[in-house]
Structure formats: structure tokens, C-alpha cells
């Protein structure tokens, strides 16, 4: 078996289809992070929100027998948690990073507690009672040879995630609402002075952040795997934070980062099937994140250096 052969067996169409799937939960959390970042809040609670979403999606699905009900419960629970976050940060003036970390801790404790208390399970809960999302085949596209295999047959949430990127772009950069939100995040004083209710906008940004994480969490426990387990978010909220950072607030650029993580995730699973130690290949997404972080930082500092190295522009004096 030569190297190309091995490579050919690893890099298949399924790998790319899996990339889209694995990118989805990070993508939802990233879109959430972008919304709160534009309102001026650095949301480090994404991880905890995903965790809550994943858990309550299972609860909703089991209780009401429908994945959509699970999704609804996931969204509601994340909205409540973000509301608490927002109140403590905005009204009681606690530091955003600390409140975010507290949310992660709280969510981790609560889901594990309720896992035992409500679902009577330790460590993980898997049951035929969990009704997950069914894959959707897209009528025309599924027949196109390669494209069909790649794009068709995913969970509806995958399509929603990618639709979300477009919606976020339009919402943030084209509508009056986004126009106001970004103003609040960049200079809250200026927004307040023209009568924009900055507090309301910040709440909106953070609640949206929560709702989107609800989608992401539901995807994890009702579409990617039909189960809930401790630590099932596996740091995806943090990957999302890196993607937000990489995209500098632009949804499309962040999508690129999400796809990189998705690919690393998918590759890790694939490589495990080839007998590589799981512990090592599972490091891939985190290493990829570090690389993405470094690349985006270098790119930023290059930009700054280029400006510094350019000859003193005589045409552009310091104006008064």
C-alpha cells in the first residue's frame, strides 16, 4: 500500500460530508459569539450554553417525542441561561469573562446533576426514547453524483446552520437592527446619545447568542449523536470563540475557521478508524485552533506592520 493509496482511503467524499456535519455545532456557537461580540460582550459562556442546549434537547425529545420539541426546549433553556448571564453582567456589573466561566461551570454542574436526577443515568444517557433528526435528501441535488453525496442527506440543522451564516450577514450588515447593534458594540456612548437603547441591544445580542447555542447543542445530541454525555461539547464553545476571533466579526470569514475545525474533527474520527491512537488524533481540532489563532494574529500584525513600513505619505498630513 503506497502513500497515495492510504491518502486516497482517508480523504474521501464522506470525509468532506462529515466536515460539514462536524462544523455545524461550532458554526452555531460561532454565529452566537458574533452576535454578542457585535453588541460589545465577549461571550466565553458559549461552551456552557452548548452543554445546556445538548442536554435539554434530549429532555425535550424524550418528553415530547419530537426532535423539534427538543430543539425548542434547548433554545428556551439557553435563552434563560443567557438572560441570567446578561442580568448579572449588565445590571450587577460583574466581569464578562468571569460570568462566562461561571456559566460554563454552572451548566456543567447542572446538566450532570439533572442527568442523574431526571434521566437516572450516570456519565451518559442513550435510549431509543430519544427521537433524533432524520437526514433530509434534497430532491434534485441528491442525484448529482459528487455534489449530491456531499450536500444531500444531512440533518436539517446543518442546512439551517449554513442558512444562518447568510442571515447573520444580512441581519448584521444590512438591516437597521444590525446597524444599531454594531454601533452599540463599537461605541455604546455614541449609540446612547442618538437614542438607541444600548441596554436593550446588548440583551438582544446575548439572547441571540444563547438561542443560536441552543441550535448547536440540539445538533450535538439529536443529530450528530442520539445521546447526551458528560463533556460531549468537548470544547466546541472554545473553538467557536477562536472562530469569532478569526473572523473579526464577519460571519463568512468565521465560517472558514469553522470548516477548518470541522475538517480536523472529521479527520480525527477517520484516522481513529485507521488504528492511530485516539488520544493523539483527538488533539487535532485543538491544534488546528491554535494554528488558526496564530495565523489570524500574524495576519493582523502584518497589516499593522505594512502600514508602519510604508513611506511617510506626504499627501496625508495629520489633520486638525
Amino acid at each position, binding site marked *: 500500500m503506497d502513500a497515495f493509496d492510504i491518502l486516497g482511503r482517508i480523504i474521501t467524499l464522506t470525509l468532506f460530508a462529515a466536515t460539514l456535519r462536524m462544523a455545524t455545532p461550532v458554526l452555531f456557537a460561532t454565529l452566537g459569539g458574533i452576535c454578542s461580540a457585535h453588541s460589545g460582550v465577549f461571550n466565553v459562556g458559549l461552551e456552557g450554553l452548548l452543554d445546556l442546549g445538548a442536554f435539554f434537547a434530549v429532555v425535550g425529545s424524550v418528553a415530547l417525542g419530537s426532535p423539534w420539541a427538543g430543539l425548542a426546549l434547548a433554545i428556551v433553556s439557553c435563552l434563560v441561561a443567557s438572560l441570567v448571564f446578561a442580568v448579572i453582567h449588565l445590571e450587577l456589573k460583574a466581569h464578562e469573562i468571569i460570568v462566562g*466561566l461561571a456559566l460554563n*461551570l454552572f451548566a*456543567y454542574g447542572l446538566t450532570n446533576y439533572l*442527568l442523574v436526577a431526571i434521566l437516572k443515568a450516570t456519565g451518559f444517557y442513550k435510549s431509543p426514547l430519544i427521537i433524533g433528526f432524520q437526514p433530509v435528501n434534497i430532491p434534485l441535488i441528491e442525484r448529482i453524483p459528487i455534489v449530491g453525496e456531499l450536500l444531500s442527506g444531512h440533518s436539517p440543522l446543518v442546512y439551517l446552520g449554513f442558512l444562518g451564516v447568510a442571515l447573520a450577514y444580512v441581519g448584521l450588515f444590512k438591516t437597521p437592527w444590525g446597524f444599531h447593534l454594531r454601533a452599540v458594540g463599537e461605541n455604546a456612548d455614541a449609540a446612547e446619545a442618538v437614542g438607541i437603547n444600548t441596554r436593550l441591544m446588548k440583551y438582544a445580542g446575548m439572547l441571540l447568542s444563547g438561542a443560536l447555542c441552543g441550535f448547536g447543542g440540539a445538533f450535538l445530541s439529536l443529530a450528530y449523536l442520539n445521546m447526551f454525555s458528560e463533556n460531549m461539547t468537548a470544547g466546541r464553545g472554545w473553538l467557536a470563540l477562536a472562530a469569532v476571533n478569526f473572523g473579526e466579526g464577519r460571519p463568512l470569514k468565521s465560517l472558514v475557521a469553522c470548516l477548518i475545525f470541522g475538517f480536523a474533527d472529521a479527520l480525527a474520527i477517520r484516522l481513529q478508524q485507521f488504528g492511530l491512537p485516539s488520544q493523539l488524533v483527538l*488533539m487535532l481540532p485543538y491544534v488546528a485552533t*491554535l494554528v488558526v489563532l496564530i495565523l489570524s494574529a500574524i495576519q493582523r500584525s502584518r497589516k499593522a506592520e505594512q502600514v508602519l513600513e510604508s513611506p511617510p505619505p506626504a499627501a496625508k498630513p495629520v489633520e486638525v
Partner: protein
Amino acid sequence: MSSKARLKGLLIGVAMQAANYALILIMALVVGAAVILVSGKNPIDAYIALFQGALGSPIKIADTLDRSSVLILTGLAAAVAFRTSVWNLGLEGQLYAGAFAAAWVGFSIHGLPSPIHITLCLLAGTLVGGLWGLPAILLKLRWDVNEVVSTLMLNYIAILFTAYLVAFPFRSPTAFMPGTETLDATARLPRLMIPGSVLNIGFLIALAFAFSVFWFLYRTKLGYELRMVGFNPRFAGYAGMPVRRSTFLAMIFSGALAGLGGAVVITGFFGRFISSFSVGYGWDGMVISLLAQNHPLGVIPAAIFYAALANGALAMQSATGVPQALVVTVKGTIMFFVTVQFFIAFLNRRLRQWMPSTS
């Protein structure tokens, strides 16, 4: 200002702090009680069982103190970083790195006198813990990479990498759980004379470090620089202080203390490195430091409180069936309220009304 007025001011300060902590604790207990009620249990019974389990007998008290050793060290690690405004969220990874290094020295070097072997183990843990903080701080200083995310990624990498090490190259064939060989007896921390308890000199080491870190931060030039940089880096640079060096040292010292924490818990409690051994010691360290308002001496009672919560949780679960994960929820609640300025401001107003003319 007369000494009487000064005393009065001091008393108000102490009373405010005490009331602040009492409020936070009550809020956390109330939230906890609500969560317990969800599972249909009686919160009071659960809290009594928790208290009994943590502090119900001398042995239990000693075990709680033992558990606090590593928490004191990770709490100090967080305090040093946070005081310098370095967001080192990588304590968990630095703890793992240090723990594995200490374990390796403990099981692969033989025939040393115990004091030397122990010292080497602890040194290795400290060193490797500090090194594990190095990439994040270098990236921050060179390219301005946000340390929040980079230290977190290094956590996952450290946990997975040590898991790999004990699953393959260093796997003990005899052990049931993936882990290393047991440490040589010469590398184990000696127990303190409390029969039936695991309390060992790790606790004394942790206490000694708490006082040393206090001395370092408040009495030395370097510590002063770290604190000033933490307050206002612009000011520190303007005054001529080495801002970048301080940031660098804060991260390395922080990592080193976390690594030492890992070394202490391996050589004192576990006796070998086990995959995923930490139940969030690093994360708890951050919360403990915040609870102590990043003060090294405040870390001691805060860590003991957290250790009591953790030890009590087990007892509570077996006695009343309330899952021990409850305690994590309570911890999260405490963290929510720790930095809420609201309490302090509110108390301040009230107390000033009660006791007028302090200045």
C-alpha cells in the same frame, strides 16, 4: 485620622467583607436547595449530610485539609496570573503536565534518599507546569494572540497527550485504569500523624507557598511590578517598569504553581499518574482565587471551603441520594456572584448610613 476612626473604618471594612461573603453563600445555598428540590429530596438533610461528610470528624477534617492542598496551589496559580491581568485559563493543562512530570521522576528514578526524590519530583512538576504556560505567553507577546483561547486549547492538548502517554508508552500492565506505574515509596509525601487520614505534608507545602506568594507579591520588586502591570499596564510602562517581562513571569509562575499542585496531588494522594485524574482542580483554582479576591492568603480559607464542598458532596450522595454534581452547580452559582459589585456597593451605602462620619 485618629486611631479610633481608623479602627472604625477597619471594622466597617471587615463587616462589609463578611456580609458580602455571607450573602454570596446564602444565594448559592438557596440556588442549590432549589436544584435539590427538583430531584424531590430534602435540601436540609442534604446540606447536613454534606457538612457531616466534610467536617464531621477529625479524620474528615484532615481529609478535607488534604484535598485543599492542590486547590491552594492552583488557587495561588490563578491569583498570580489574575493579579497581573493575565487570563491564564490553562491551569488544568499545566496541572496535568506538572503531574505527569512528577510521576515520571517518581517511578523511573530509583534508589534516591526520600527527601531528595520528593524534591526532584516537585521540582519537575513545577518546571514542566511553567513550561506548559510558555507557548501561550510567547504567542501573546509576539503576535498578540489572545491567551484566553490559547491556554484553553493547551488544556485539551495536555489532557489528551498525557492520556496517550499512559495508554501507550507508559502504560502500567498491572493497573486496571490507564495509568503509570506506582511511584517509588521514596517519592511519596510522608503522611502527617493523623491515623486514618491521608493528610500529608503536601498541605504544609501548600501553606508555605501561600505565604511565599504573599511575600513575593507584596514585598518584592518583581511582585510589585506584577501588581502594577495588572492594575494598569499603560501606567506601568510609563513609569518605566518592564511590562512584557512582568506579563511573561506572571504566566510562567502561574503555570509553575499549577504544575506543583499536580505534583503534590500525585506524590501525596494518588501515588501514580492516572489518565484524567483531575476533577477540575485547575478550574476550581480560578474560582477559589476569585473568591479570595486574588489575595494569596485569602486563597487558603477559600480552598479549604471548596475542598469541604467536594468531600461533603460524596457523603451527601451516598447518604441522601442527591447527586454530587450538585456541588458543581453551587460552585458555579458562587462564581456568578463573586464579582458582583452590586453587593459591595449596596452594603457600602447601608453601612455608611448606619455609621456616619468615618472620615
